[in-house]
């Protein structure tokens, strides 16, 4: 398990490659990457991500440990950035290795659903019009019920 919180960019290709190499007992690798999207009505200048330094790493490690408990997973990787990012920059990534594709997919989806609503990050969109905190979505909270219903 590898969990990283950093301001600097990460190298998606190098991380994915390093994660997958030598997994001879694992048949399936899934990665998810989040990218700063420019979909605002006024062009997005930047996205600022605030976090809770004392809690962030602990929260991410807890989510990753829970994923390993629930699914048949090998290695798990979580990288999440904070600070000022511009459109097209990668915000975060997760990767899961598993013997079978179902666990690899579900493990990654579980990580993402919990990262969205349970990891202490707050996003703010900066445009020429000013800065707006991104509101949490009901859909993200609802996504968690999928996992709560399970044993």
């Amino acid at each position: 398990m590898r969990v990283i919180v950093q301001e600097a960019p990460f190298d998606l290709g190098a991380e994915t490659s390093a994660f997958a190499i030598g997994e001879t007992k694992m048949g399936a690798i899934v990665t998810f990457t989040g990218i700063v999207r420019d979909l605002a009505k006024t062009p997005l200048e930047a996205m600022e991500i605030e976090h809770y330094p004392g809690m962030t790493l602990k929260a991410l490690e807890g989510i990753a440990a829970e994923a390993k408990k629930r699914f048949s997973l090998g290695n798990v990787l979580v990288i999440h950035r904070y600070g000022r990012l511009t459109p097209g920059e990668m915000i975060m990534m997760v990767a899961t290795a598993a013997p079978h594709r179902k666990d690899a997919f579900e493990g990654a989806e579980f990580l993402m659903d919990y990262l969205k609503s349970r990891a202490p990050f707050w996003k703010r969109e900066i445009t020429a019009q000013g800065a707006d905190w991104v509101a949490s979505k009901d859909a993200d909270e609802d996504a968690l019920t999928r996992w709560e219903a399970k044993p």
Partner: protein
Amino acid sequence: MDILYFAWVRERIGVPREALETKAKNVAELVEELKAREERYAVAFEDLSALRVAVDQELTDFDASLENATEVAFFPPMTGG
């Protein structure tokens, strides 16, 4: 006890953190104490359903005990990922 604020809660209260002597037994009592202090707290804590709380860096509820707690953080729903 250290009280931390993040995102728009931090902006409304005007500071990212402050130290506080309190006898509040749980989070809800702490909130009432803060709201009574100044208008900016009353505004920030107006709608608790729009807020989340962590005690000693663990997400919890507003009825959570503050016994032995050293750090309480208030913030809006998280938007990670």
